[in-house]
């Protein structure tokens, strides 16, 4: 069945099976492979994207449910010219190793900092505890997100 929504600012229309998840639609139909699948049962958070500004597990949402929504993936939170302040902070704090869970952390942290640029360490840990990283041990990820708060206070996370 047909579905229309916006991805990273562009309107898309896709013909999908009703059972296709949003994650598979993004990865397979739209070739946005930055969104990763780590468990496909809603625990690991690697597939997190923003749907109308909310951090959502795209493995637990059907593509057809995205009808009319504004979807933003990690690609939509990136630009060619430079890393964003959040991405720079991740790099500075070595908040990623294999990079597989990273898009989910970037989208989740972006949603959090956009809403709550003044959040404290406990709040960051609480929100990020829905995402699994097996490489870093999380300490550096929490530091990176805390360090990026100032950019969201000033410019909403823009450069």
């Amino acid at each position, binding site marked *: 069945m047909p579905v229309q929504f916006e991805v990273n600012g562009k309107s898309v229309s896709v013909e999908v099976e009703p059972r296709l998840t949003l994650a598979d639609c993004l990865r397979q139909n739209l070739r946005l492979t930055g969104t*990763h699948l780590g468990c496909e049962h809603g625990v690991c958070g690697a597939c997190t994207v923003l749907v109308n500004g909310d951090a959502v597990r795209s493995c637990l949402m059907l593509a057809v449910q995205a009808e009319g929504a504004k979807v933003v993936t990690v690609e939509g939170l990136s630009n060619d010219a430079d890393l964003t302040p959040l991405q720079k902070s991740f790099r500075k704090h070595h908040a990623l190793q294999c990079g597989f869970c990273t898009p989910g952390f970037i989208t989740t942290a972006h949603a959090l900092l956009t809403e709550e640029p003044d959040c404290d360490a406990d709040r960051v840990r609480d929100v*990020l505890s829905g995402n699994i990283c097996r490489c870093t*041990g999380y300490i550096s990820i929490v530091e990176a997100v805390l360090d990026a708060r100032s950019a969201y206070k000033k410019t909403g996370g823009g450069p």
Partner: protein
Amino acid sequence: MKNTFIGAPIERREDLRFLRGRGEYVDDLAPNGVLYAVILRSSVAHGRIKSIDTAAALKIPGVHTVITAKDMPGGPPIIPMRLQPLPEFKPFEQPVIAHDKVRYVGEPLAVVLATSAAIGEDALEAIAVEIDDLDPVGSREAAAKNKSLLFEPAGSNRSLVFHARKGDADAAFANAPYVRRERLKTGRHYGLTMEPRGVMAEWDAAKGRLTVSGAAKVPFFNRRILAKQIGLPEDSIEMIENDVGGGYGARGEFYPEDFLIPFAARHVNRPVKWIEDRRENLMAMNHARETEADIEIACERDGTIIGLRGEVHTDMGAYMRTNGAVGARNVVQFMAGPYRVPHVKLDSLLWMTNKTPVGTYRGPGRFESSFYIERLLDMVAEDLGIDRVDLRRRNLVASAEQPYPIASVQPTNANDQYDSGDYREALERCLTEIGWAEKSKLQGKLIDGRYHGFAVGCFVEGGAAGPKESARLAVNDDGTITVFMGSSAVGQGVETVFAQIAADALEIPMDRIRHVYHGSTNTVSDGYGAYHSRSIVMGGSAVLDATKNFHAAIREAGAKKLGCDASDIKIGEDRVSGPGGKSFALAELAGLTAEGAFLNHKHTYSYGTHAAHITVDAQLGEVRIVDYVVVQDVGRIVNPLTLRGQVIGSLVQGLGGAMLEHLQYDDHGQFLTGTLADYLLPTAGDFPNLRCFVTDNHPSPINPLGAKGAGEGGIVAAGGVMANAVANALQSFGAQPRQLPLTPTYIWELVQAGQRQAAE
């Protein structure tokens, strides 16, 4: 120009693509005409296959083919052991697909090829499998009865016994003034990677060439196996290492799918891609760690260790896989850890059971043995009335005793020695950093409803497996340089650290190193990959050798071009100059290339100390870490940023194993932990208060960098230290944890048992 990139916290090159979602993992590849493979796995732990009927599945639109063992002329190939390939293990090796018996839940029975993974999964439901149940062997105790045999021709469920020996333990124990015997056990874990495994194979029928994407860890070795199994010359197969979402020892070994998918691609002459889902991953990727020790320690009255003796049993699962014996070997070889133990007599018994086969997981055998020795030491200290820290001080191998020989292991004739270091120095630093002298006064105290506990444990970490690593440097068209490595990337940052090492050796800015390519079989003549914390020592030393050859080649080419002696050539950042002001751009030598290698059979041993301050809620059995410090000396630090990432990252995996993780089966061999809601992993809120201090005070004498493998030290001591901290906190209940993980239920039971005993 003298560079100091080595030792500097250089931000990683890899991050630029990973942070933008531009990494390229194997599932991101989608060539035209690709078919998706989905694997039918046994739901029976132990049984004899009567029939597999695929007719109904083949009728489903979109299903192309279903492959079973019958499609393999001569029967399915067997996967050989990569490490410790002893003849004794032969009868227990795994066929790439089940053909007569199934031996664990998750064993491949059939491969469906379909136009989408979803259709393939639909087809799984339509395959009718008839299996006659056999008595399942659900534990190592059941295995030892040999009533139900996994491999009838072998006549036993025990595949091997390793013997670790040093000195004369029986005589030492006979005369020892103090002996303590304990039974202790560790849980079943695995090196869960966030990226599930995946393989994509493309067959070029005209050229007779096979390209396999999704290779990791040991692509060159896996190519040798695959070439033999599939009947192709090695150079007709190219293994491509894409971005790899984690390794930890588990990813990249040769698994059944590493044959099945290339075979399928050739069988149907179409590209075939297989991506594991998480449920499959939990039951198909190598398990690890499930051991039980029945061991005794002998000491003098002053706490000097005399000897270790006893048996360790490992639940090996259903087959001997490529590196499956490493953990069982290590657990007895390294039981003494960093401590001076003159007499060792330890046997390691390998039991085959109807569970997923085991392989290595970061710190194989070392996490387990550290739990055993550290638990014993705290018990010894209590028995003999000696301070726990002093007991360790007394027994740590001293730097003057280095290189220090450890127990030898038969039948593999493993004779090893620790290379260098000052273990005591790391212990004292760790005590200072955690503030032991002052804070440990709280031990056992109840404050605001929580008992405070402290523990300290020391470790060694082996690294730098030989025999060889290769590197190659080449001049690009624009005069920049590309580095090609036989080492593999599993997320640890090799593109950055090898660029640091190369730029330092070549005395050029880092941005002159345009690319570092790694892993794939088309980059260097021979490669050995990423395991046993070997990349920096072996790969880094190979880079050093390659830079020497590279400079020599440039000098020779420059001498020819400028008509002078090679010794008169000076190599600058981007120019080559000779006598009399003559020079030319390095770019003019585009295509010039030189390879180097490092050959080495000795191992490095980085080392250090963990210390923990925890609190326990005795009513809930819940543990919180107040402070946890790791000090590790790695010989030479190449990049402190990535090194800290290794230490803290491996520490949290160790804490997961100590507190949360356990792969469970019922008595029938049914797998009970098939989701991430069942197999609990640490998350961001679990262990927030961790610190590490890395030092390079004592370079390794056995490689030109002076570096030591350092990817596993954080995991090694975590189990022993957490268990000792819990015992210390709950000393008023007499709590003595004897198994991992330290679940709330288990801790609560220890408290209840203590209270019952006090009441009696």
